[in-house]
């Protein structure tokens, strides 16, 4: 069986700074894998190497069996099948919610206006912002913006979704709406690689949790084990800090 995502000995340097120091990781189709770890440990960089927003320095990345790091590959064609959701939403501020979800369908998938609009409305309804079709991103709350961003990615019918701290920029009371949408996606069988600090979500929704620190995978296993009973001292120390921040 081909892996949905496979990273082989992935290295990434920014100048002298070695951010990823040889990562081996595989995500199976339909799996939800949460990546946790301290700030600066290379989680975002890892995620961005999957769709080549960052070019790995060394190592290979495969998505659905296709080597993404092959210089001859059509990266735009591959990215069409990989949805990405950013911490800062990155909606296009000059377009309405509906246009945000339609534009790539029209320009990239060459869908007609009608079809793109139908698909866009379906997906906006699905994430619970169907009533906000004509609003500009600036008129929406953070939680609504992030759900539009998820709809925008889903409208491309991706094979897998990458989430980079999708709730970290949200006011606490808005986090739940976004997590609910993500939980629903997971239940539908979407393959998801999620960087998050939401331990409750990771514990309940993830099939696996990966703990990263200093550019390496320190621990990788069942959520109950990694979060509930970590084997590594570094994991334990990190979780202690996250779960008991006031100490």
């Amino acid at each position: 069986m081909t892996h949905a995502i496979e990273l082989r000995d992935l290295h990434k340097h920014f100048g002298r700074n070695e951010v990823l120091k040889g990562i081996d990781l595989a995500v199976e189709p339909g799996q939800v894998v949460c990546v946790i770890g301290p700030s600066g440990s290379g989680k975002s960089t890892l995620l961005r190497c999957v769709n080549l927003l960052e070019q790995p320095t060394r190592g290979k990345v495969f998505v659905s069996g296709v080597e993404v790091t092959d210089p001859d590959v059509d990266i735009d064609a591959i990215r069409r099948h990989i949805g990405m959701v950013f911490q800062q939403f990155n909606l296009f501020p000059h377009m309405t919610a509906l246009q945000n979800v339609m534009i790539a369908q029209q320009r990239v998938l060459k869908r007609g206006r009608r079809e793109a609009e139908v698909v866009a409305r379906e997906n906006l309804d699905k994430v619970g912002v169907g009533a906000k079709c004509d609003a500009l991103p600036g008129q929406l709350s953070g939680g609504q913006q992030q759900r539009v961003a998820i709809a925008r990615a889903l409208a491309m019918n991706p094979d897998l979704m990458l989430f980079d701290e999708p709730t970290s920029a949200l006011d606490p009371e808005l986090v739940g709406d976004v997590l609910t949408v993500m939980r629903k996606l997971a239940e539908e069988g979407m393959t998801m690689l999620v960087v998050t600090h939401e331990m409750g979500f990771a514990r309940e929704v993830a099939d696996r949790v990966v703990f990263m620190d200093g550019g390496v995978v320190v621990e990788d296993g069942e959520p109950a084990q990694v979060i509930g009973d970590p084997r590594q001292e570094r994991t334990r120390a990190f979780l202690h800090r996250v779960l008991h921040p006031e100490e």
Partner: protein
Amino acid sequence: MADQPKTAEPARARLSPRKKQQISRGIQYVVLIVALVAVVLYADWGSLAQNFAKPEVAGAALPELFTVALRNTIIYAVGGFIFSFVAGLVLALMRLSQVRPYRWIAIVYIEIFRGLPALLIFLLIVFLPLALPGFEVPFGTYGQGILGLGLVGSAYQAEVFRAGLQAVPKGQTEAARSLGMSATRAQVTVVIPQAVRMVIPPTTNQFVALLKDSSLVLFLGVSGEYVELAKFGNDLASEHANATPIMVAGLTYLLVTIPLGYLASRLEGRKGRNR
């Protein structure tokens, strides 16, 4: 206790800040009034009015002031503006290109055309047919004027666009690319429209600058149907040996430039509020 009046006395004698301010303001008014009185007394009002605001001469400017001169000023300015807008955007994209030679070309162009006096460009345009035998700028003087304004304007507009393009967050391009858009597609659908919106106020100011610089068309040696406001005013002034037509031309510029200036600052303000 007994010492207190003694220490308070010199404190009162010294000027309070408030008093100082009053005196300073008083002096400023005195200077102004003296200057005004001097101007009123020594200026030859009759002669000034005769030479700069003579109604009959002003009347002679109509209706060509508007039907020919202002119309041409607008043709030169709008033409030069369209040229600068398009070329400026291309130059800005070259300036930010990954391809080094494109960056160099853009930098050299921008530095040269911002560094030279616009007048010099116009003087050179007159000599173009000599330098390039057989070459003729299309649309006659219109073409020459628009070329001169466009060459200069595009260098400035390129810097305006560069600032706008750089102000679009990197996450915008990343979101577009992650949806499968090519680099060019992402620029065209996502980055450039946002950059253009951001630079509307400075671009309005650029248009005002071009409108004023269109007076340099005077140096192209134009005549008849091609004259714009400055040349029109100057010709009529020579004819009547009277400066009134130049004043009238000046007022006509202000008729356009002042409202545009207000528009630019309104747009600037609105942008600030939308943040």
